[in-house]
């Protein structure tokens, strides 16, 4: 494994589960919550043992790959400059119950990962780990070839970064499924059939294939056909 160190921004339900997966796969894992690392030291020790608490800037600095697992509404707090040149996995979703109603995040013209990429112009953003519920992620890891292995969709514009993230998905116990570009990653967002999907690679591929013919797919096509 060439991706040695993983930084996870966000120490909530999703961040702590991803930290467990990363530790289990043998990575050095640095997790940053909001503010003082001391505030999450005990949480990590108990819930994600092996992961180390860190300040966001320090975690990012040391990392080969950075995962964003904080509320999407707090994207503005992510230190863009510190992420220059990094592969960044966007595992976030627009969740109005946490983020409030935000017209920009709900706009069908752009996927939320495109907004993340805009906020991080000097990083390479890849969408992954967003569509599966955190308890399914927790229960889901299987060795390669297991008959009940579940799939995680990976979407991005940079083939090398997509390959890097796909290798992580595989190493962490899931089958990676290519899901197109960042623009296409709207197919993985809330209201798409894939959202919440805890299914095999074949089934996930079928869902992605039929997205354009679903109600949501038609809404997206319609919205994007207009300025």
């Amino acid at each position: 494994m060439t991706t040695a160190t993983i930084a996870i921004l966000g120490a909530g339900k999703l961040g702590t589960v991803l930290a467990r997966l990363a530790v289990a796969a043998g990575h050095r894992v640095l997790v940053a919550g909001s503010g003082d690392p001391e505030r999450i030291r005990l949480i990590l020790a108990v819930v994600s043992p092996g992961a180390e608490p860190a300040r966001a800037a320090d975690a990012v600095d040391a990392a080969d790959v950075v995962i964003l697992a904080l509320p999407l509404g707090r994207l503005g707090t992510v230190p863009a400059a510190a992420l220059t040149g990094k592969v960044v996995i966007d595992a976030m979703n627009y969740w109005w119950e946490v983020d409030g109603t935000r017209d920009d995040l709900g706009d069908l013209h752009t996927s939320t990962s495109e907004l993340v990429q805009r906020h991080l112009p000097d990083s390479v953003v890849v969408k992954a780990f967003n569509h599966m519920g955190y308890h399914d992620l927790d229960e889901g890891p299987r060795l390669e070839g297991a008959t009940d292995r579940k799939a995680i969709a990976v979407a991005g514009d940079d083939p090398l970064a997509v390959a890097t993230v796909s290798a992580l998905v595989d190493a962490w116990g899931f089958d990676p499924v290519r899901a197109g570009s960042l623009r296409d990653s709207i197919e993985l967002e809330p209201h798409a059939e894939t959202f919440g999907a805890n299914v095999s690679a074949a089934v996930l591929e079928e869902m992605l294939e039929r997205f354009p013919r679903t109600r949501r797919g038609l809404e997206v096509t319609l919205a994007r056909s207009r300025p």
Partner: protein
Amino acid sequence: MINVDFGLDTFGDVPSDETGAPVSHARSIRQLVDEAVMADELGVDVFTVGEHHRPEYSVSSPETVLAGLATVTRRIRLGSGVTVLSSDDPVRVFQRFATVDALSGGRAEVILGRGSFTESFPLFGYDMADYEILFEEKIELFSRLLTEAPVNWSGTTRAPLTDADVFPKTERGLSTWVGVGGSPQSVVRTAKYGFPLMLAIIGGQPQRFAPYLDLYRRAADEFDTTAHPVGMHSPGFVADTDEEALEAWYPHFKVVRDRIGALRGWPPVTRGEFDREVKSGSMYVGSAETVAQKMARTIHDLDVGRFDMIYTSGTQSIKDRLRSIELYGTTVIPRVRELLAEMPASIGVVTA
């Protein structure tokens, strides 16, 4: 094995009458009185009603319902599950529950929560952006009010209090829990104030919550507060046979789950997902024996001191609801106690 309490929880889902039509909110609330009285007579330990502001549910004001239950029940504890403290006034919450406590002879209990539904925020003029600070400040104020001594407090989310004495006083203090859905930070906060923890385990394998119980106990140790026995609540339904339970419950569950799921962007639930949740997840649906076996396994594995079943799910018939409560009280609870007595002691040890 610690002593385990058994409860029934509801949001006051609007049930169907004998013709299959949903009843009015008013009748739905009166139905809760019948059900709480039945639970009381069957020896269920606690009955809780949770605050929601949606058409499917009739309870938006839990303590008003509890006041109605207080004078017609005798032993059962009466709780809210949860009170959305973030969008309420801690002083009023205390006063209303202290009043229920008086009416019930000390049987009131509050479960404070942030709520997984957010309808109360716009309704009462709060901004979702203040979600964290509202709960943080208000739980702190509430913990001071529980001392029942004059309170000095200032913050950003309500007017300051100077030597504020709040009435009525209770006779033995107000039992207060904190309901947590899965945020580790919330578990730590609960331990910081020394409140008992109520875990909402509504999906996935319950055993995956074991680290949260450990976190609660270790955090209490660090803060030098008391780690109380932990409670949990999960949905369930009991009928005469497994098949009857599954077939009677699933259509009603699906309607509510899909309606609420659509707001959150989830696709409709499938029968396969439902069956998996019943088999190995967090739904306790089946015959009394099936439900008892599953409850006993979870209670044992997680070493919880309280198990509340969310016994309503959408527009089930009143008849099915009553039968489920009856089976829960007469058969499931005694059987779980029996099964727990036969099991070896849990590895996790409650320190309280």
